[in-house]
């Protein structure tokens, strides 16, 4: 059987089963050629996007072995197992565990552990243990040596393609007779350097594989987030398993946070299922915290929502985002308990109702009433607090927030003139169209109908004209004339007329009179 993708000249083989490979089918071959060799070849269209998604899922699942997992190319996973292997009884034990669990999933894999990423890549893909004596024919994973010399010995029999070179460079080397890494390593460096001057340099690749040169990925030290894991001897499938795991995980994580003088802002709890999938839930806090009782309370509800399906066999609690927090204090605002209490309240509300439901006002630089007041999540997660569009405006850029703190008097106090306040206390998310009797073109309104109710206007103040923001709004936006009106029983509303007759904008181009909207309610 073979998977095919559409090439320029018909279907091309993307991947083959071992049986098909035995019949001569190779990836990159055209399907018609393969059918010539073996007419019964079954061809199924490949799904590269699905493969990629599956690999990503697999990468998340592989977090059970290491907190740093990277999808490597289209068919590989790279795990940084530095400091991790001893948890599984050394590197050999780790490899055995990996193979056993992949086998349980029904996946075949080639795995290798080595001191450098390049060497691990090469060993995993090209190391073939079967010709070696004493291996008993069984496929065994390669465990690369520690030192450079040992590594060089291990890599020497592998073909040069194992150095992750492009195919032209590989072909050039093979044409030169340098078929193995060992042969390449025996050549004088200077003569090689003269021939290969491009980025695709076999010397570089060799150095990276042998650890003489750091790989860009490993060159940058990545801070491992605080993490606590719990491995279970037997899979558990009752729904309270997650909550019970917290009893162990939270104190462990808090101990680690304490040791590193950090306070958690975002926590994620992952439950690893026996079938290889992962269930996860995350919570965020408004201020950094490592109070076990508070964190446990936030997580408990979420933990119960994890669906065990066939059962969990491991849990991991990770502080994905943490901030510095001094050694002695369990919170930033130890002395003013009011702020702490409010922050905890926000945490609880956000966990239960969702972070978007709990918000604080934020002033923004705009004349339009609905744009002047934005909302930000009370648990500011720092990732995309301002990416939301302004309410009631379609497709316009959101004005930048003013450089004021998001609360504590971020708005200038309402300008109370004689009588009514200038701004309403309530604003409709979407201004609602009302039918208004008024004297055209710019007379004051006399009566309006809103939601089928007739309001006779007893008193009116206005207009207050708000011009469109041409630097932000779409061309053709119309001005607004706002009126503060009071109906015959004393209800006060903020209504506006959009545009004036003859301004040639918006619907006026079709000869439709300006429309009226009800926007706010006064208290």
């Amino acid at each position, binding site marked *: 059987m073979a998977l095919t993708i559409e090439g320029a000249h018909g279907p091309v083989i993307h991947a083959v089963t071992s049986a098909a490979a035995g019949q001569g089918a190779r990836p990159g071959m055209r399907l018609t050629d393969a059918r010539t060799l073996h007419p019964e070849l079954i061809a199924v269209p490949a799904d590269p996007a699905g493969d990629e998604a599956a690999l990503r899922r697999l990468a998340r699942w592989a977090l059970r072995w290491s907190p740093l997992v990277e999808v490597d190319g289209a068919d590989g996973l790279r795990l940084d197992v530095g400091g991790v292997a001893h948890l599984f009884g050394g590197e050999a034990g780790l490899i055995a565990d990996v193979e056993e669990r992949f086998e349980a999933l029904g996946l075949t894999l080639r795995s290798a552990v080595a001191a450098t990423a390049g060497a691990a890549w090469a060993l995993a893909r090209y190391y073939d243990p079967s010709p070696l004596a004493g291996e008993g024919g069984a496929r065994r994973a390669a465990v690369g040596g520690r030192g450079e010399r040992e590594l060089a010995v291990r890599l020497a029999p592998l073909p040069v393609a194992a150095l992750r070179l492009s195919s032209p460079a590989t072909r050039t080397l093979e044409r030169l007779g340098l078929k193995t890494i060992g042969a390449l390593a025996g050549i004088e460096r200077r003569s090689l350097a003269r021939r290969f001057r491009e980025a695709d340099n076999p010397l570089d690749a060799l150095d990276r594989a042998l650890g003489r040169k750091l790989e860009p990925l490993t060159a940058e030290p990545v801070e491992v987030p605080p993490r606590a894991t719990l491995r279970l001897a037997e899979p558990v499938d009752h729904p309270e398993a997650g909550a019970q795991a917290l009893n162990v995980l939270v104190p462990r994580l808090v101990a680690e946070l304490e040791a590193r003088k950090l306070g958690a802002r975002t926590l994620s709890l992952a439950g690893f299922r026996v079938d290889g999938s992962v269930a996860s839930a995350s919570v965020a806090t408004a201020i950094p915290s490592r109070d076990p009782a508070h964190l446990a309370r936030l997580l408990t509800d979420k933990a119960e929502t994890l669906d065990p399906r066939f059962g969990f066999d491991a849990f991991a609690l990770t502080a994905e985002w943490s901030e510095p927090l001094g050694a002695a204090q369990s919170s930033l605002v130890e002395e003013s308990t009011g702020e702490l209490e409010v922050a905890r309240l926000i945490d609880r509300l956000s966990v*239960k109702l969702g972070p978007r439901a709990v*918000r*604080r006002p934020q002033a923004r630089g705009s004349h339009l009433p609905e744009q002047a007041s934005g909302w930000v999540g009370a648990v500011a997660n720092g990732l995309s607090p301002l990416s939301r569009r302004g309410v009631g405006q379609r497709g316009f850029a959101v004005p930048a927030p003013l450089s004021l703190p998001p609360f504590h008097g971020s708005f200038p106090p309402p300008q109370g003139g004689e*009588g009514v306040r200038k701004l*309403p206390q309530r604003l409709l998310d979407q201004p609602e169209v009302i039918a208004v009797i008024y004297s055209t073109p710019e007379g004051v309104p006399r009566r309006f109908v809103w939601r089928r*109710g007739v309001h006779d206007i007893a*008193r009116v103040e206005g207009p207050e004209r708000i011009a469109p923001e041409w630097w932000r709004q779409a061309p053709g936006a119309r001005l607004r004339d706002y009126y503060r009106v*009071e109906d015959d029983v004393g209800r006060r509303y903020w209504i506006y007329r959009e545009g004036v007759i003859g301004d040639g904008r918006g619907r006026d181009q079709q000869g439709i009179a300006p429309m009226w909207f009800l926007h*706010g309610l*006064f208290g």
Partner: protein
Amino acid sequence: MGVIRVAAALSLVAGEGAVAPFGPAAPCSPAKAGVQTGEAVGMPYRPAGCGPTLSELFAATSRDGGWTGFLLPQVNSARPLLWVQERMAVLQSGRIYPPGLPSRDLIHVEARDARGALWAMEEGLRCGALAAVIGELWGDSKVLDFTATRRLAVAAERSGVACWLVRLGGTANLSGARMRWRVASAPSLANGLDPRAPGAPAWDAELFRARGRPPGRWMLNNDSGAFDLVTEPGDRALGEGERRTA
């Protein structure tokens, strides 16, 4: 006499630590307010007469936002305010608009339904650092029964945080609220600068049930930030005659 009755009533509403809407921030003493609080002695929570408690406020219709102006001056502005709105209330009566509100630390919660809103209110009442919890519910919800309101009342009295349960277009069924108001907008006072423009807002507020005190009905207005009693309803035209400004 009407004036004294109002003073007592609004002190009760505002509670301890809140802005006394009438006059200088006089501490609410039972003797002065003339309210019997003996029943509260020995209760596990604060006496219902003086401390912050649960008040229920009925807006006549969801198209009347007047109650917002009636409620806000009674809330202490120094501490954060939790404002919970059910989604239906947002759709019907609009979302609160911070630029129009007095400057304060505000936390807004938009709950999907009445159940979520009540949960958020109760959770807020457990946090003693808030100035007040205001919750807006639309219509008559099944979950809003006597037990739910009673829970809110006990939580409010235990933590000392005033709670306002605002009912938009709901009917006054059985409730555990200590005070129940019906508030509607009234024609505003005359505007001194422009006779055609609206003046200071006024409300027709009816306290139709309160623990330990007789109910009553008053016409109030809010001029220069403090509550004024205008007149007894029906006595005189609005804005005329004596006004008690304190």
